[in-house]
């Protein structure tokens, strides 16, 4: 087990560099420049800019220079926001996205696991149908629709919560709920499906036959197997959450990393794109590693060679 973890950890950095390379390739293929604007730049000025950023050199030279910096952890300065380094930007805005992301996912886990388990246990009851329909609702409404609806209800009709911008704990409620909605739906359905699988299986029948009470059966045996699909889902979901908070950040004017990332792609701000991509890819890989490790704990049938 230990060597397995070590091997995976060592692979992370080289893989992140591969991701950075592929992304760099994509950015270079995409048409448009960071310096283009509605008003055209005079040819002489454009030539000077290209020279300053080394854009007039052959692509392999540029790639080499960039990679040698990145390997040392230096992503350089943002092209659009002059004077701000990429590391600084990530450090500054990550906490916002992380806060609503983590709170959102915790809320989704709590609600989803509970609802999914109960629905599986009381299959075909009104709770089952009702909660799964509600979950379905969460899946059918895009978050850029749900957010404004919630703002309309809770901010403008009921005057309970602020409509945008962070400030005080109340302002976190609407963004977190909007974000959690779709994940709650996913988790509830995955849990229900997984639990149903497990509850019919032989080892659960054995446990019951042995005389264990339903509660032990549930908590000690069934849940472990039942939540495997949720665990598979969590790894990439958490990492995608960071980029997925974009809509919530736009609607509620929260200065998070998701919005900055999308903007950097639209602005062709290469250092910032690469920096965020490198960071996110390392995060995803770490999460996936944790997920894979927990498979081993949850299901004794899974063995890693």
């Amino acid at each position: 087990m230990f060597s397995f973890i070590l091997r995976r950890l060592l692979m992370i950095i080289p893989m992140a560099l591969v991701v950075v390379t592929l992304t760099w390739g994509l950015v270079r293929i995409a048409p448009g420049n960071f310096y283009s604007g509605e008003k055209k730049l005079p040819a002489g000025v454009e030539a000077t800019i290209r020279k300053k950023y080394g854009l007039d050199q052959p692509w392999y030279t540029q790639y080499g220079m960039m990679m040698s910096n990145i390997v040392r952890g230096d992503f350089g300065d943002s092209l659009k926001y002059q004077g701000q380094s990429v590391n600084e930007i990530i450090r500054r805005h990550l906490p916002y996205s992380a806060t609503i992301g983590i709170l959102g996912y915790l809320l989704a886990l709590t609600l989803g696991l509970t609802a999914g388990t109960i629905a599986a246990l009381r299959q075909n009851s009104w709770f089952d149908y009702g909660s799964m329909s509600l979950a379905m609702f969460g899946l059918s409404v895009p978050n850029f629709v749900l957010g404004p609806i919630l703002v309309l209800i809770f901010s403008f009709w009921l005057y309970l919560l602020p409509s945008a911008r962070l400030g005080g704990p109340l302002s976190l409620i609407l963004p977190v709920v909007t974000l959690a909605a779709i994940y709650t739906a996913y988790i509830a359905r995955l849990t229900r499906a997984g639990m149903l699988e497990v509850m019919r299986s032989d080892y659960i029948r054995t446990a019951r036959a042995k005389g264990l009470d339903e509660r032990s059966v549930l908590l000690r045996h069934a849940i472990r197997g039942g939540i495997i699909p949720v665990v598979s889902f969590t790894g990439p979901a958490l990492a995608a959450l960071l980029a997925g908070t974009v809509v919530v950040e736009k609607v509620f004017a929260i200065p998070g990393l998701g919005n900055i990332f999308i903007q950097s792609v639209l602005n062709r701000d290469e250092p910032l794109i690469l920096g965020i991509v490198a960071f996110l890819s390392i995060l995803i890989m770490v999460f996936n590693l944790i997920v894979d490790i927990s498979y081993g704990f949850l299901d004794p049938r899974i063995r890693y060679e």
Partner: protein
Amino acid sequence: MTENVEIIKGASLGRDAWKRLLRNKLAVFGMIVLGLMIVAVIIGPAIIAWTTGYTYDSIPEQKELVKAMGPSFRHLMGTDDAGRDILARVLQGGRISLMVGIISTTVSLIIGVSYGATAGYLGGRIDNLMMRIVDIFYSIPYILIVIVLLSVFGGPSTPDWIKWLSATLGGAGNQGLSQIFLLFFALGLVSWLTMARVVRGQILSLKNQEFVMAAKATGVSTFAIIFRHLVPNALGPVIVYATLTVPSVMLTEAFLSYLGLGVQAPFASWGSLAADGVKNIAIFPWQLLFPGLTMALTLFSLNFLGDGLRDALDPQTRKF
């Protein structure tokens, strides 16, 4: 010697499943609604155009009519800000949304299941490598992929068969549709990754069971073990996940439209109609309501159908 042997039709897995499916009322309801929706979006636009003359892009000629109007007899779902009939747009948008859902999900299913099952069964180094590749692709921002695909292929270098498809489905001179097909590929390319992980997880727990060992012992080929024994047993969560992929893909497309990268004007999809409608929610709520409800209804049906399929195909699920 003549043989008067009665040939007894064996009950195949498929027929069993179909019978079980029909017994599930909600699934049948879902199938019917979905079927009706598909028929509606295929022939609906033509019918509307024939009876009322409204199409998805017809802005009225009389200046007074170029504004948002509430539901009425002439416009069953009201009009949008440019005076276009929302019913016509919802039907046209349905074509695109459904195509997005179905095509992208199919692509992701085929690639994801094959990839994930193979990785899960083969295990060891190969599994490691395959999953690392998934990790790598997962980290590449799909927005970037979409931008590159649309701009590199959307111009003069659009392959001919895409042009033919868009001419057939949207009428001549509609270059915008080729952008949509590129969108399908981009979305399909992105969604197979999580499917692969889910399938792999399932296969990992199944591969050490007795039936697999039995198959190996009798000399069944690896390919057959994976696709004829393991995959059908893993189908439960896979089908549920597939039915989760359809809304996810449709919502991703809506998100891309919100950012300006998805379905482009003059076409619409349910997602883009919802994105436009939400801006006016406080004053013209029908602009959000109708596309939203239609989308929700379709996705509801898909899910009931998915649940039914899971219950029907999984031989172990019995109601005790």
